[in-house]
């Protein structure tokens, strides 16, 4: 088997891997590091705003902080961390041996990684972007230095990665399901991944288009958004939000999926109203595309457009409501075991409901004239993103950690993390609703005393510190259990319902020795209830074909990284253009190489599989 590869250094192994489970770990580590960076930026923002007239950071640096915080959290932390869980779990959940395009899967990761790295190089090379994570055109065109160029180039590169990964998941879920795994038997996390990937497919191209136009304006003398020469900045806002709104659904739908799994597992019940849950996810995904202009009520679109978008936005509350009640009724009549992941699910429901209802409040356009660009909005979207997505990421990580790493995380420390994070979260953001209503605009680096804003801001900062403490406990937990954690069973929580719990923890390279036959929803649970130990196989045991590892995804992405530097500096230095072209040559050269080299992959032989399975069962 692949022992030859194993013996090579761990680092080389990960630089060349095309195995979805290892790519998941890469996403988890990279996304985790970016999450911590975004968190540090958030703390700096909150410390600056702890008291009025503070001068902890300067006005310019503050704007860089909010921009990088928002950009990092959305593009480099939340999305990749979800990709980590999707990569780790979805192929196993549908009974597949890998994703449809393992090579592209690796390419997706490295593009994201180099894009994020490029963006963060800005800190050391003359200043980070400072026009907010939305980078609205008039301001981003005025911004001096190269900050915004880092933003447009970095996000284009990492955006390609996201797009590629999204397409990969779509194809995987459509074509790689095990026999019997019909659409209406797919676990909800898989469903959510499927819909979220479709959102990526339709949402990222407009973003790339918007960024491309911005790049033309800034680096190549274009005038798409230059109003003095007939350009139009409002077009940029539309392009951005046609991407930006689906983006938040692309984050929250997988979160819904994760909690659906956790809630039904630890309530020991099948999901209440499975088909309406699927319907709701698809509907939310669809409606997510129809409502982007609710971010632009104050731009001056006129009452007709505002009214239409207001009403359209409100409709999203209906499928969302369906989901909430279905979760509650999944727990109803169950036998709820309060593990750490379940604790996150329980905390999620009220937090997300608060975030959801403030969303409906904002949909009332005239009221939004008051909320828009105030701290009320900051409170709302953090209730959704932190109360929804981050709680899901934390819960999901605790839930699937044993599957990914073969060790249980400490429940005691896990619960401590939850309590700290959850308390800190509400302390930070609840009060911000009121700060906004009391007239505090968002993205302000300071506020003046005597306007009634002091107490709220101080409380908010204290909350942020508590959240940071929670994250630190999580890191300690990870370190401790990595070295002396308890080894995890295949069915690590003893209550697994879906296929991933039927394979050893961590799953072997080939996932399933024999592709399983799926006989219903919650396939593994069905088998267990019938008293069987494992899954019913759908094929005889035989050699398994695997793809070869490859260094090319890394090189292709590196090429774009180099090209980005070249094009960014081409107006300043004569070496810019050649370096830019060199980068493209590296990228396209290695793509050619990939096409020319005949790579047939390799086989894992039957005997080795039998050997490995024996060990797996013993563990």
């Amino acid at each position, binding site marked *: 088997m692949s022992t030859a590869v194993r013996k090579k250094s761990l680092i080389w192994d990960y630089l060349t891997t095309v195995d979805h489970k290892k790519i998941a770990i890469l996403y988890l580590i990279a996304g985790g590091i970016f999450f911590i960076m975004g968190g540090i930026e958030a703390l700096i923002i909150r410390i600056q705003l702890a008291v009025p007239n503070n001068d902890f950071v300067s006005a310019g640096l503050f*704007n860089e902080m909010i921009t990088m915080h928002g950009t990092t959290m959305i593009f480099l932390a939340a999305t990749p961390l979800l990709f980590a869980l999707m990569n780790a779990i979805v192929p196993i959940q549908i009974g597949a041996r890998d994703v449809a395009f393992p090579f592209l899967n690796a390419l997706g990761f490295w593009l994201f990684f180099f894009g994020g790295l490029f963006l963060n190089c800005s800190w050391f090379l003359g200043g980070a972007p400072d026009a907010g994570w939305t980078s609205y055109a008039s301001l981003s065109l005025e911004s001096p230095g190269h900050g915004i160029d880092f933003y447009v180039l970095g996000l284009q590169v990492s955006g390609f990665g996201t797009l590629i990964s999204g397409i990969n998941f779509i194809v995987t879920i459509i074509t790689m399901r095990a026999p019997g795994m019909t659409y209406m038997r797919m676990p909800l996390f898989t469903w959510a991944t499927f819909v979220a990937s479709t959102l990526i497919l339709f949402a990222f191209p407009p973003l790339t288009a918007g960024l491309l136009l911005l790049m033309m304006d800034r680096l190549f003398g274009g005038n798409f958004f230059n109003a003095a020469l007939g350009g139009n900045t409002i077009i940029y806002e539309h392009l951005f939000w046609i991407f930006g709104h689906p983006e938040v659904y692309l984050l929250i739908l997988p979160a819904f999926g994760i909690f659906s799994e956790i809630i039904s597992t630890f309530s020991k019940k099948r999901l209440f109203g499975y088909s309406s849950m699927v319907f709701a996810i698809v509907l939310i995904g669809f409606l997510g595309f129809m409502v982007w202009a609710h971010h632009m009520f104050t731009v001056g679109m006129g009452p007709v457009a505002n009214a239409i978008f207001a009403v359209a936005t409100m409709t999203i509350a209906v499928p969302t409501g369906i989901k909430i009640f279905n979760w509650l009724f999944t727990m109803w009549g169950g036998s709820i075991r309060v593990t750490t992941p379940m604790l996150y699910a329980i905390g999620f429901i009220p937090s997300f409901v608060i975030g959801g209802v403030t969303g409906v409040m904002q949909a009332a356009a005239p009221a939004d004239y008051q909320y828009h660009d105030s701290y009320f909005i900051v409170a709302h979207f953090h209730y959704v993103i932190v109360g929804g997505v981050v709680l899901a990421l934390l819960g999901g990580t605790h839930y699937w950690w044993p599957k990914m790493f073969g060790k249980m995380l400490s429940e005691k420390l896990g619960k401590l993390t939850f309590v700290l994070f959850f308390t800190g979260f509400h302390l930070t953001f609840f009060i911000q609703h009121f700060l906004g209503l*009391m007239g505090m605009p968002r993205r302000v680096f300071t506020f003046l005393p005597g306007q009634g804003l002091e107490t709220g801001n101080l409380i908010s900062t204290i909350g942020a510190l508590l959240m940071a403490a929670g994250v630190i406990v999580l890191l300690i937990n990870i370190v401790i259990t990595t070295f002396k954690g308890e080894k995890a069973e295949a069915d690590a929580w003893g209550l697994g319902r879906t296929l991933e719990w039927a394979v050893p923890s961590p799953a072997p390279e080939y996932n399933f020795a024999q592709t399983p036959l799926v006989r219903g929803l919650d396939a593994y649970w069905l088998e267990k209830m019938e008293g069987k130990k494992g899954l019913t196989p759908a094929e005889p045991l035989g050699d398994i074909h695997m793809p070869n590892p490859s260094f090319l995804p890394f090189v292709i992405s590196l090429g774009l990284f180099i090209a980005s530097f070249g094009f960014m500096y081409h107006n300043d230095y004569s070496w810019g253009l050649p370096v830019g072209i060199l980068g493209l040559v590296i990228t396209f050269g290695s793509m050619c190489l990939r096409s020319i080299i005949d790579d047939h992959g390799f086989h894992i032989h039957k005997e080795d599989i039998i050997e490995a399975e024996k060990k797996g069962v013993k563990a």
Partner: protein
Amino acid sequence: MKKWLHNWRLFSLFSMIALLLAGCGKPFLSTLQPAGEAADMQFSLMLLSTAIMLLVIVVVTIIFVYVVIRFRQRKGEENKIPKQVEGNHTLEIVWTVIPIILLIILAVPTVKATFDLADVKPMNKEKRDKDTLVVNVRASLYWWEFEYPDYGVITSQDLVVPTDERVYFNLKASDVKHSFWIPAVGGKIDTNIENKNQFWLEFDQERAEKAGNIFYGKCAELCGPSHALMDFKVKAVPREEFDQWIEKMKNAKKPVVTDPVAKQGEEIFNKSCIGCHAVTPIDKRPEQARTAPNLANFGDRERIAGILEHNEENLKKWLKDPESVKPGNKMTGTYAKLTDEQIDALTKYLMSLKVE
């Protein structure tokens, strides 16, 4: 909208929230203490939506708490397998239909208010009524210009408006996008660079008095380092007082300076500052040439640079190094370094610029 509010007042929960919310913030700034028709409409919509949403939260919370407490796994139940319920169509239809009804209750007044607030016909009439006040607002990094086109008067930083009538605004930006927001008086609207936005606000006399006749305005769209400091003030006064003020502004001549120190200041001003700043409210230059706030009534202003308390010390601080007050502003570095003596003279001169 008013009627809506009336009906809903009966609802005890509703008035409770109103009480609760109204206790928050300062009357010159807070959206929770609305001081005019537009803000009232928005506030009642905020209350209506808050009430509906609170209702949702209460229902969910009750079920949630019940479920979590009642259906916890007890000791000895580790192996209990609950019944695997598939779903329940009646229930699912119930929680689809009820939200739809709640949303319709919210959507109808929303649409109505959207159109009411966008009604700017009176300002666009071929020949507009001479009592209809129109103000052109121009936002720049990091200051505001207010032009009264029917009177040919320009001021900046402090907007003066009559109370108890609708005031109509044309709004735009001269460099990057900003957003015009007077929280206590009404929601914001963006100032774009490629087009003009229009809306109206109304300032209530009674409630303006409670706020000391001054409201605080903010820029709500990130526009650069000093975005947070791009404040302005609104002086809302009864119509007669406003008429007197506009009359004085209209007739204000070039200031006559008698004090010798101020005279010296005037000379410095005419050498270093007049290129950008004007000192009479009637400024005939095109707007592209008006690259700095009009200082005609500087002595009457509420704040220096929109944020600092209005006194000589702060003015000196500003003249000495505007950057230390508003980072990234467009005044820094546009004039030669001033000696302390020159700053004193300028201060004297600027403080003497008054129309009142």
